[in-house]
């Protein structure tokens, strides 16, 4: 692995507790995200996997009354420590959402350039170069190079999702988080995105939430399994098992994982 060309960034999660108002949504999570791997978070709906993901770049706290406790380290920097600006954290840890989202009022070109402009880049040639680079990296350039000034809404769902990915990688984050990126897409678009994720692994560290176990098995290096505990007053999510994807799917240590994998729950 060419560490100089593509610096390796890892994340370390310790005792992470996401809250919605006073309700704790997930029991304390310990999780390691290793450099240049795809970590999949899987589990039945309501288990808090998306909530945990949104805690990893401090998007969780943009929901009213939501906050998180614990520590999340990007390399050796705790992004939850006092004095760290969430806005800057999100420049380093990007996020792609479930819905393919084109910024409605912007052209395809501006959808990519907006993030670069935020960073203070105004030079037209440099912007052109970086936009093209991002679109190429997202396997979208050939499809849109002749219509960069058209609205992003003119693209298909799968193309819009790759546009979202291009927008995120344009600002060159260290880690990219994916929140069920294929759940709104058709099978062919899904395959293209999966292919792209495997390519991106060469350069970035990726975390993906998916409800599709086959997808996790196909593309992830390691998998973390979340469950819902319903015994209490309100359901609470918890992390039951984390390990290499191969181990999780072939010989799970936890009985609940086994039941989930074999389709008995969820």
């Amino acid at each position: 692995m060419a560490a100089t060309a593509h610096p390796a960034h890892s994340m370390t999660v310790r005792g992470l507790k996401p809250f919605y108002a006073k309700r704790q949504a997930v029991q304390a999570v310990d999780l390691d995200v290793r450099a240049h791997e795809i970590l999949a978070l899987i589990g039945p709906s309501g288990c808090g996997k998306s909530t945990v993901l949104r805690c990893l770049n401090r998007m969780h706290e943009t929901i009213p009354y939501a906050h998180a406790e614990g520590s999340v380290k990007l390399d050796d920097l705790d992004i939850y420590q006092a004095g760290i600006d969430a806005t800057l954290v999100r420049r380093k840890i990007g996020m792609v959402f479930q819905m393919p989202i084109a910024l409605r009022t912007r052209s395809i070109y501006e959808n990519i350039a907006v993030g670069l402009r935020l960073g203070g880049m105004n030079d037209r040639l440099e912007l052109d170069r970086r936009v093209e680079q991002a679109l190429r990296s997202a396997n979208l350039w050939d499809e849109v190079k002749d219509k960069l000034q058209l609205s992003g809404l003119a693209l298909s769902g799968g193309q819009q999702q790759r546009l979202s990915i291009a927008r995120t990688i344009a600002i060159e984050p260290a880690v990219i988080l994916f929140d069920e990126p294929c759940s709104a897409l058709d099978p062919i678009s899904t395959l293209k995105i999966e292919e792209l994720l495997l390519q991106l692994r060469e350069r970035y560290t990726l975390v993906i939430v998916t409800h599709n176990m086959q997808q996790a098995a196909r593309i992830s290096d390691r998998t973390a399994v979340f469950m819902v505990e319903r015994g209490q007053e309100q359901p609470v999510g918890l992390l039951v098992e984390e390990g290499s994807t191969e181990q999780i799917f072939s010989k799970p240590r936890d009985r609940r994982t086994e039941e989930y994998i074999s389709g008995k729950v969820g």
Partner: protein
Amino acid sequence: MNIQTNMQNYAGRSLVDRAMRGLTVVATALAIIPLFLIIGYVLIVGGAALNLDFFTQTYQPPVAVGSEAIDPATGLPIDSTLSGSGAIDPATGLPIDPSTAGSSEEQPDLSQVEARGGVLHGIVGTLMITIAALLISLPIGIMAGIFLAEYPDTPFNTFIRFCCDVLSGAPSIVIGVVGFTLLVQTTRTYSGVAGAIALTFLMVPTIARTTEEILKLVPNATREAAMAMGAPMWYATLTVVVPTALSGIVTGALLAFARGAGETAPLLLTIQGNSNLSFSLFEPLAALPLLTYKYIESPFPAENQLAWGTAFVLMMLVLGVNLLVRITTARIKKG
């Protein structure tokens, strides 16, 4: 890992962020200040003008301080300083403006005049006109609302909605002109009925649109359940759907009532005003907003005080209805 490196411009952006967010707070405060000032003035100045007479008596011409004597024939105070310029126009019952009344002799000290009487005629007039308007508007508004909500949505429905928007956006003076030309001129008299019909133009769209919106919230299962019992659609609508939505329809009616009660311009051209208590909708009537206007235009400071008192009663009525609606709907929403 240093996240600060590529964000040299961040200090400036952060400053803009804070400044602009601060400006929106300032703007909100700016809007609330006049609200509190207006409500405060009406409550304090208006409250001070209130007494029992205010609610039990009708208009009485002002008298000079210390002089209780009034000419019983003309209703004019028999006080030499007031004769002429402080005179009351017998036709309208309003004081003649000294600048137009032609008395150029000695300017009387208007502040030495004491206002008496009350606004009972205005309260009665406002209630009569607004309730009459509501009685005309309710069937039109509710039935039109049913038409918009319960039957298939066609371009025709869109056109009716547009007509509602046109009516509620029309300047109230235009509605006044319509009432004046259509009713006052043809019947050759100002009347409460003319005022009520003018207000109908403004109340119908509110009721129709609220009814439509509230009926659309009634779940389809409710309709289907009633029709599955074999009830015809009209029967299901009137006995099941409308009662389900009743509280919302009442809300719409109350808001329309509050809007109608506060309107001045249409009444100016249709009911003219009346200094005496009248219970006939076919005569000129008084109304609270009209009295507020007439008292503030009066040259007597004492009558200007009455304007605040009248505004107090009017505001209690309008804001009271609004508060009532908010509180009950909030309670209904909570379940």
